[in-house]
């Protein structure tokens, strides 16, 4: 089960080399996103798009908030 990350967790995981993914639509990402984040919209998230991710490093996903 995915773990919930706090803001401090995100900062620590990024220091440790985690991958940061914004899962909102691309237009939202382009408007503004967390520095270092890459865009991988939920609608496009499948085996093929996920193949570019590194399985050996932690992955953090986020959107606007819990909605």
């Amino acid at each position, binding site marked *: *089960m*995915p*773990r*919930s*990350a*706090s*803001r401090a*967790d*995100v*900062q620590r*995981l990024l220091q440790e080399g*985690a991958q940061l*993914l*914004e*899962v*909102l639509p691309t237009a939202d*990402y*382009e*408007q*503004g*996103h*967390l*520095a*270092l*984040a890459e865009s*991988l919209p*939920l609608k496009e*998230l*499948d*085996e093929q798009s*996920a193949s570019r*991710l590194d*399985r050996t*490093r*932690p*992955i*953090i*996903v*986020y*959107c*606007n*908030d*819990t*909605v």
Partner: protein
Amino acid sequence: MSPRAASRLESLGFEDVWDYTAGKAEWSAFGLPMAGRQVAVVADAMRPDVPSCGLLEPVSVALERMAEAKFPLYGANLRDAGGAPIAGFKDRALLEAGGVRIGRASCSAAYGAPRWVTILTPLPAASWNQVPAPTAPTSPWKSW
């Protein structure tokens, strides 16, 4: 949305998946680094740890913290009960950094003001007249 993305990643075999549920809203509210078209870079340069006081703390606690502040306090429409400026507060200030002139001012709403504070309404015209029109930045905001 992010919980579904996290679950999908796990179903695709990723084992170390985290969901930052507070997301972009919290991150930007704390002034942490953002990127993108509409990011207000000046917000990245602002400190998010300005001391304040809790709802149940008396005014004296707020005043003590303000007296300890290492940054200037502004209140263009704040006066004491006699109409004199309040010690430690400035009406406004002009800064210059990298060729950019920046006007600083602050005003307060009358709601909840203690009896020893007078809130001037409207704001003294001089507070606005001395704030110049904005100019385009010529150096990265972060540099100062």
